[in-house]
């Protein structure tokens, strides 16, 4: 925790976990989707479901999906902003076994037709954790620059990606690997100390067997 986690964030109230964290969940979902969301189904679990309405959790997540950050004064009016910007959304309570008490499950569709399912939790103080992407465990916070790479579960991808990073003098802080099933889809979540140049991200995208690359530049929201 740095001193601006103690004094800060500047945010729209009333709750750092139920409001500011919820905005960040919406925002990071938009970043991960990679385009403007036009449809969203928002499921609220646990304490998000129980006290979310009174904390504006519903409006906060929609605000984040619209690209607002936790200090945006338009958060309380995000529902009407969504109508203006053509984002259709539904909000319902849901139960996710074993999930953190402040968890949301978002199914979003972007304007380019891509879809994504994001399960994320608000950990307190406005900090969040993305638990799953399309059902595959990822556990990343988006606080530092992060590369999320979807690839075929085959030998050689980790080596290819890490040597590219080494060549670009980018230091890896953490590296996590997950897969749905053997030989199926796999996900690499790499938190790094430096920002990744855009052309390096593009290069990764063109590699055979890599299906999707998402880059979060670490500022979160």
């Amino acid at each position, binding site marked *: *925790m740095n001193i601006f986690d103690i004094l800060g964030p500047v945010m729209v109230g009333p709750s750092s976990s139920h409001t500011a964290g919820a905005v960040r969940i919406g925002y990071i979902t938009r970043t991960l989707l990679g385009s403007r969301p036009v449809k969203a189904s928002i499921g609220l679990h646990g304490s998000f479901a*129980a006290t979310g309405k*009174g904390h504006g959790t519903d409006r906060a997540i929609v605000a984040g999906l619209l690209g607002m950050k936790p200090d945006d004064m338009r958060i309380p009016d995000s529902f009407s902003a969504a109508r203006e910007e053509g984002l259709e959304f539904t909000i319902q309570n849901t139960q996710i076994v074993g999930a953190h008490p402040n968890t949301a499950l978002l199914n979003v569709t972007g304007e380019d037709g891509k879809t994504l399912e994001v399960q994320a939790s608000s950990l307190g103080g406005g900090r969040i954790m993305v638990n799953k992407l399309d059902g595959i465990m990822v556990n990343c916070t988006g606080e530092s620059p992060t590369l999320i790479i979807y690839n075929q579960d085959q030998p050689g991808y980790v080596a290819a990606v890490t040597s590219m990073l080494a060549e670009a003098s980018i230091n890896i802080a953490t590296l996590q690997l997950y897969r749905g099933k053997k030989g199926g889809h796999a996900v690499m979540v790499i938190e790094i100390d430096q920002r990744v140049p855009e052309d390096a991200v593009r290069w990764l995208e063109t590699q055979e067997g890599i299906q999707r690359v998402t880059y979060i530049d670490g500022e979160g929201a």
Partner: protein
Amino acid sequence: MAYQSLEEINEFCREQKLPFWRAVLLDDMNERTVTEEESLSAMRGMWDAMLRASDNYDEKLSSGSGLVGGMGGKMEEYRKKGDTLCGDFVSRVIVQALQMGESNACMKRIVAAPTAGACGVIPAVLVPLYREGHINADKIIEALYVTAGIGQVIASRAFIAGAAGGCQAEIGTASSMAAGALVYLKGGDNEAIVHAAAMALKNLLGLVCDPVAGLVEVPCVKRNVIGAVNALSSADMALAGITSRIPPDQVIDAMREVGESMHVSLRETGEGGVANTPKAKEISERLGK
């Protein structure tokens, strides 16, 4: 993170002959790899946001639940009559604490310090002092580093979330941070700063987190008042030369122990304390629909 105790900060200050705030600034530059100017500029941003939040209070607003709103306006009216028990300055502090807490509940923009629920405590003591005109903004920025240093040690040795340690972890921590800042602004030395922080925290040990209907409204808004006023009295005691008999870091450890042994119904679940009263249940049921 560098500092694990208040004693460590003060020891570093003694070695380097530094004021408390500067030790915190140097640590931030190191932790986030930023220049002095970048760190100061970020802190100025926090102060500007606090002042703007204070200016933007609207006594006509009420929270979505209707439980809070207008108290800051009422208190201000009363203060203006000039016959308060607490005197003018303390009454201004009370007004500011209520207003900030209400703004937060009404989804206005505030600075979490250390949390949104406790966002009123630090501005409640700093804004009225600043507006009296004897203290300039640069000095306030330095005082904010004092608050951050204290808060960071409490966060690392104990916790700052109501769900983890009850209200003592939120309002108690904010009060402790504010007390240290006040001592600094009044010219107290580094020892007095940490003793004020310790006394403020000690006085709020055991405070439970019992939000009615789980909302950051009742009793949270008014708890900001006790946090702010407790900071003033703790700072005055420290400036008078009174010290905490228990070393400040040990007080923080005690806060942790108390928080850990606190029943879960008293840690932000909205199940115990005032949240468990018949009236609170009635409110909760009305809002639950």
